[in-house]
């Protein structure tokens, strides 16, 4: 293999598994260390700069970082660091940070931007552009900002105070809001001669099921996301005692748990696929089951049963999943009798679609065969150079952190576009690599590896939670537990940096490394090299760090896979050929 180019910022970025997996590339270990140090304000601001909604995300994030976390790979039944809930510790314990928010210039730059939809994507664009002096108008058909974070995510997961606070930080920068305003024509916005328009309208249309009996069942059958919105906006305050929720995603989990709080006693989730294939996150499923909600898998809905104009229940066909040679799944009926389940209400939570009936097709914004706008994956520009898309509106439903990541990139593009620079000219990330050496064997980070298993987040008593739909279920870590959970982090951003010219090939690093990451060996092609290491490098998603040739004509090969970042290699190296260096990687934002 060729020597690894550690100057390429992506090399070390990838080693920080959590940050690399995070759509917004939040510098996770950096803020975890600040939490451990009790510097909650600083930890909060590191988050805020990158993901804009630390308090919200610390409760609701889809947390793609956690399955990626190195701690989950090191065996011994280890689970990932509770990254998401640590973020909440920073948000819960911070003091007033308003003085640390960016200053918005009095003197505007003369450019006017329209944001359609006030969800996390649009809010992020506003957050990045307001400090640069842009004039921003935001349009939303709801009475306040937040998008689906307000209308969909239930209060027992996300208290309204937390939402209001973090939405407020942005709107208070002087964004001109046009709430309760449905935009029914993009042309009407284009006419207002904005310098750029950002569409962040989400994927607002819930899918339904056209089954026999639907019409007769009438008002007892609801579209999940519409129903959740009407609960959030207090138009709906109760539901029948027996509720069937159709679907296996996170919306289904929110529907069933909300039902339990609005009078549902026999609430069931019925899903076509096997339990393991469900889209909902494992923790959402656990939380639902913890509230006494059974999840019935392998049942395909067939018919609404209605008698005397009143919904009685539904019929389901039992299936089993079969997988072909390519792993493609088909659900095959078992041939058993249809199963009847009684119900007073049915909530359909089987997915969302985008809908752009309000975008005229003669404005230069082209749509593809699935009726989705054609949007550049890097610049978020549509085929009309003035119009940008982001969040769920760009490529279909995802999650808050993805919407934020889109928002940052769209803001970069809009800023470039308004300064008449090519939007393809992406600014490079900001990186910094600094040694952590404090003395011969002293590091400025806590390199000892803790053995604690992942801590559980305490919860409010079940009875009480079910009585009050606004009572937050999770209580968050207290500072002491937060500290101990933070200490579980390996500090993967403190990189092992190798300098071949110093190495005397004494093997000390090889001998000390607890997880056998380091090998001195003859060079070979990657697949061969992976097998000739002290411990086989069988995780191809993790890179090998390969040195240039050493005096004995061997190379140093380090498998990044299960490095604990414990610093022992550097402590044992007599010549400081290894050094522990902290790598900071920040995605460049608009104007940087």
């Amino acid at each position, binding site marked *: 293999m060729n020597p690894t180019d550690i100057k390429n910022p992506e090399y070390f970025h990838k080693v920080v598994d959590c940050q690399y997996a995070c759509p917004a590339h939040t510098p996770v270990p950096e803020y975890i260390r600040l939490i451990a140090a009790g510097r909650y304000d600083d930890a909060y601001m590191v988050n805020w700069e990158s993901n804009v909604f630390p308090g919200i995300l610390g409760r609701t994030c889809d947390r793609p970082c956690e399955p990626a976390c190195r701690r989950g*790979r*090191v*065996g*011994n039944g*280890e689970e990932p660091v509770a990254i998401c809930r640590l973020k909440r510790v920073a948000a819960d314990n911070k003091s007033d940070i308003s003085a640390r928010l960016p200053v918005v210039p009095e003197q505007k730059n003369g450019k006017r931007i329209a944001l359609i939809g006030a969800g996390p994507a649009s809010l992020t664009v506003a957050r990045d552009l307001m400090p640069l002096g842009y004039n921003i108008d935001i349009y939303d058909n709801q009475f306040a900002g937040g998008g689906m974070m307000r209308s969909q995510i239930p209060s027992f997961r996300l208290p309204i105070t937390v939402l209001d606070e973090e939405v407020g930080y942005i709107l208070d920068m002087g964004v001109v809001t046009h709430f309760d305003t449905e935009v029914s024509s993009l042309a009407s916005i284009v006419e207002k001669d904005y310098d750029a328009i950002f569409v962040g309208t989400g994927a607002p249309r819930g899918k339904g099921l056209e089954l026999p009996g639907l019409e007769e069942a009438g008002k007892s059958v609801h579209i999940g996301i519409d129903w959740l919105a009407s609960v959030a906006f207090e138009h709906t305050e109760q539901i029948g005692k027996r509720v069937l929720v159709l679907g296996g995603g996170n919306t289904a989990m929110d529907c069933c748990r909300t039902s339990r709080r609005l009078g549902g006693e026999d609430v069931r989730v019925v899903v076509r696929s096997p339990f393991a294939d469900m889209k909902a996150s494992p923790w959402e499923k656990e939380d639902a089951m913890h509230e006494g909600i059974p999840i019935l898998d392998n049942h395909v809905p067939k018919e609404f049963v209605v008698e005397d104009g009143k919904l009685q229940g539904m019929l389901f066909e039992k299936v089993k999943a079969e997988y072909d040679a390519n792993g493609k799944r088909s659900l095959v009926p078992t041939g058993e009798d249809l199963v009847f389940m009684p119900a007073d209400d049915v909530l359909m939570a089987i997915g969302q679609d985008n809908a752009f009936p309000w975008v005229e097709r003669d404005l230069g914004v082209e749509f593809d065969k699935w009726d989705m706008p054609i949007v550049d994956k890097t610049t978020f520009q549509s085929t009309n150079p003035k119009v940008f898309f982001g969040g769920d509106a760009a490529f279909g439903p995802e999650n808050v952190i993805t919407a934020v990541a889109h928002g940052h990139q769209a803001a970069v593009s809009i800023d470039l576009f308004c300064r008449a620079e090519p939007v393809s000219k992406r600014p490079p990330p900001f990186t910094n690599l600094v040694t952590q050496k404090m003395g*011969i*064997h*002293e590091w400025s980070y806590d*390199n*000892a*590896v803790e*053995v604690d298993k992942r801590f559980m987040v305490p919860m409010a008593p079940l009875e009480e939670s079910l009585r009050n739909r606004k009572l937050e279920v999770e209580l968050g870590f207290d500072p002491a537990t937060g500290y101990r959970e933070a200490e579980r982090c390996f500090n993967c951003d403190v990189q092992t940096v190798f300098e071949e010219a110093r190495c*005397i*090939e*004494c*093997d*000390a690093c*090889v*001998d*000390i490394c*607890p*997880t*056998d*990451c380091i090998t001195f060996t003859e060079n070979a092609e990657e697949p061969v090299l992976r097998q000739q290491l002290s*411990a*086989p490098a*069988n995780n191809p998603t993790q890179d090998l760090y390969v040195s240039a040739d050493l*005096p*004995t004509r061997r190379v140093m090969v380090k498998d990044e896979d*299960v490095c*604990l970042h*414990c*610093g*022992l290699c550097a*402590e*044992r*190296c*007599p*010549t400081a050929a290894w050094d522990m260096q902290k790598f900071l990687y920040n995605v460049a934002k608009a104007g940087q």
Partner: protein
Amino acid sequence: MSYQSPTFRHPGLPVNDLGYTKADYEGAISTLCAGCGHDSISGAIVRACHELSLEPHRIAKLSGIGCSSKTPTYFLGKSHGFNSVHGRMPSVVTGAAMANRDLLYLGVSGDGDTASIGMGQFAHAVRRNLNMVYIVMNNGCYGLTKGQDSATADEGSASKKGDPNPFSAIDLPGLALQLGATFVARSFSGDKGQLVPLIKAAISHRGFALIDVVSPCVTFNNNTESTKSYDFVRDHAQATGTVDFVPMREEITTHYVAGKTHEVTMHDGSVLHLEKVSENLDPFDRLSAMVTLEQHRAKGHILTGLIYMDKDSRDLHDVLETSRRPLNALQEPDLCPGNKVLANINASLR
């Protein structure tokens, strides 16, 4: 400074026949200087014992005094250990081996511990062919007492703070050959590829097995004027040939060129392959070994690898015809069989 090694190990570590990973043969975290050659030798011992699937509780590790003699703390944490007085490890092993012949005795010593204060003990353990592995971690100095020249320091070699050594060096392999050693090897701490199979072969050998391992002291004797530095050893080492060790239970998978390989079946059924052995050396002939060793020394080379092995070695127990059952396992009735037996013995002598 870390005083503890993390408890996590690579989840894909290979397990041996006993179901143990290499980690099960490790010891406490080393307190030696960073980069000390001795730590690499500890690592090689761990690997050899793991790969041979030795039961840790069947091993006794013994040492004298010195940085080298501290290392038993850093490997085989689940085995028996004895830290003796300076230079007195051989006599403690002699006693232990006599009392319990069933353990594997692994002696670890330094060049000071062996070639200075312990010289007399060493000489007699060799000539008695005590069944043990004797590893000398040879750095040419007294590391623990701040790097004074030892008796193995080459003439003219200078340590970091010292003057060129005016005395001639004791060559431990040469001395051992002269004293009748039945297994003599030399290696380098920085070459585990060679050292690990040599340790395995030494473990399988019945009788006294010496491995003199050049092991740089990074702190006091790794300077350019020293002949025990990493660079000097790398530049001047010449291997007798390559050594491959196949434990008894394993199938031989490597293909060896006929005529160019010596194949030796060891006492325990394992097979030792010596490849590309230099033409002048017959490693089964003591005289040839002595000559080759001296020739290399004269040329300023450090001869490494297996230097000599007596395939028909008889260890101290064989020679003394001791009881097959370890002495410490004999009970009173075995040792004191009673009047009738005594009467028979007396009768046979009449």
